[in-house]
């Protein structure tokens, strides 16, 4: 019994890393551009399908392909912001919400049309089944690797934001885009760079997810909700908070699945709502 619970906790923590990766990009776009990208989860799924197509065409490992696709992912994020989403900046929240909503529908159905509704999964090789024991607990090597990738990503993003000049510009524009424009720091450019970074995080998420679990065109929204909940739980404005939020979600899901399979998602949402009632600013909030 104790062993089961411990294993559930550990697995919940490890999958929290994956959710933190989902949440990282969302946190950045929320913090900088102040919008919720409704299509965030769908872009992760899109990334997974692109990864699948390229990897199977080349016959290479998805990890290698994922790495190679990162510049492309940056470009997609950059261009999307520069030429589409920038038009909705400064016009209130409805336009951007509706545009990203429209994108979500287009991506989901476009993927459905192109690849069909079957679930897919990419093969990562031997690492997927490797595991080791730590006392009572089994730790899968792949989940651990993803968790470490999450930590590295958060650390990397923190470094980028707080110790580089690009990061300073991003934070400046996040503080006050009008002031930035006034002194010649063109906010549109900086937003585009930020979205490029979001694109990279989406590609990394897609790479990790597509090997870990099944995916199909319709799971985008559930990724978005999990990412969103992780961000809010962890506290808006806190990057490490997304890790905490992700872990809470992962653990909640695992404990919920003990009751029965359909309690998995319900537990996740309920934990979120309860936390919202008692700690609306999140667990690690700076606000």
């Amino acid at each position, binding site marked *: 019994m104790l062993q089961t619970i411990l294993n559930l906790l550990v697995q919940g923590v490890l999958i929290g890393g994956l959710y933190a990766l989902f949440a990282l990009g969302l946190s*950045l776009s929320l*913090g*900088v551009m*102040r*919008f*919720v990208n*409704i299509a965030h989860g769908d872009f992760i799924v899109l990334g997974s399908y692109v990864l699948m197509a390229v990897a199977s065409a080349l016959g290479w490992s998805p990890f290698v392909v994922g790495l190679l696709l990162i510049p492309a992912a940056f470009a997609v994020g950059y261009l999307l912001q520069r030429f*589409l989403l920038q*038009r*909705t900046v*400064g*016009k*209130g*929240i*409805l*336009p*951007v*919400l*509706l*545009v990203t*909503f*429209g*994108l*979500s*529908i*287009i991506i*989901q*159905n*476009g993927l*459905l*049309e192109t690849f069909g509704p079957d679930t897919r999964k990419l093969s990562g090789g031997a690492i997927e089944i490797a595991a080791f024991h730590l006392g009572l607990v089994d730790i899968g090597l792949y989940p651990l690797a993803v968790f470490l990738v999450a930590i590295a990503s958060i650390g990397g993003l923190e470094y980028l*934001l707080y110790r580089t000049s690009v990061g300073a510009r*991003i*934070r400046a524009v*996040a*503080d006050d*885009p*009008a002031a930035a424009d006034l002194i010649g720091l063109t906010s549109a450019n900086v937003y585009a760079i930020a979205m490029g970074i979001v694109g990279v995080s989406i590609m990394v998420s897609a790479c990790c997810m597509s090997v870990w679990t099944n995916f199909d065109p319709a799971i985008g*929204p559930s990724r*978005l*909700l999990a990412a*969103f*909940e992780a961000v*809010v739980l962890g506290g*808006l*404005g806190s*990057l490490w908070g997304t890790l905490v939020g992700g872990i809470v979600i992962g653990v909640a899901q695992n404990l919920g699945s003990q009751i029965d399979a*359909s309690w998995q*998602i*319900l537990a996740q*949402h*309920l934990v*979120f*709502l309860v936390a*919202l*009632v008692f700690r*609306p600013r999140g667990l690690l*909030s*700076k*606000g």
Partner: protein
Amino acid sequence: MNVMDTARGRIGLAVARALLAASLLAAIAGPWLFGANQQTVLTEFFTLLTLAMMWNLLAGYADIITVGQQGFVGVGAYAFFGLTALAHLDAFLAVPLAAIIATLVAIPTMAVVFRLRTAYLAVGTWVAAEVMMLIAGKLPGFGGGSGTSLPIPIVKQFGSSVLGRVEVFYLLSLALAVMAVGSTWILLRSRIGLGLTAMRDNEEAAGSAGVDLILTRVICFLFTAPFLGLAGVLVTLEKLRVAPSASFSITDWTIYVIFIVVIGGIGSLEGPFIGAVVFFLLREYLAGFGTWYLIILGTISILVILIEPRGIWGVCRKWGIPDLIPVSHFRRARSAVIRPLAFADKVPARAERRSHSRRSAL
């Protein structure tokens, strides 16, 4: 340049209003004018129109963008099923009770979700709707994840023949739509509506002028709940079953609705009408295209938002066409004064203050 300045303009407006009234009369006479198929389509039209009116009230006037109204639709559906099939209440009694239950569910939902603002609130309502759907799928007696059919005896309470029932559902949906439009109109012309206008223009000033911001939002949110619940009842009567994915379908009750309102014109009473008509026409022509239908709908929405965010009726207003259903509080104003909140014009400080969350950045 204002249409109302010419005699032709005033006559045109009078004619348009007369046509509107005539259509209403024709609609009431529906069972005698239209065949069964047409009535069924119109039933769906009126149901969607109701949903569109409600989403439009919240998003276009009250600055509450929701992506979760499918939750209350489903609650209404499941409440109706529970009251009739499980509690064996009379069907006609169950209808208003379902609306009340939906409103009761809205209260705790609001208490939790209103801790978020703007875009976060939107996703929060989505989460709430998901929770409602998941719980519905667990309730005993409702058929679990795949749902269950509405028992025939209950259906027959609405009429013993199929045609008879079609007519009853038609009239019910018409009544719902008329009530939805009418009540919304009354609400917007009331003090609440005045408060909404004030909030739109300058939230801080409105607050210090005595407009209770929170109460106004609460009232608007609760106002929509019973209508959404009733729509859920109608949907159940039409489909003759309840199921989590169908009764709480985000596509049917929210996504299509958002498209309707955006394309027709957010922030006006005419917009949802126009949008619903366009939506049904598009569906007729694109019916055979499967997933492409949604892709096209999504693309059109994006184009509308980018090119003319106020939709078709927004274009009409630009040409000086005054509202057919005037909501303005100022008698002398020619065109309706209430601009959609969401599209803050380029008055720098105000627009930024509203669109930026108060929380710190990074």
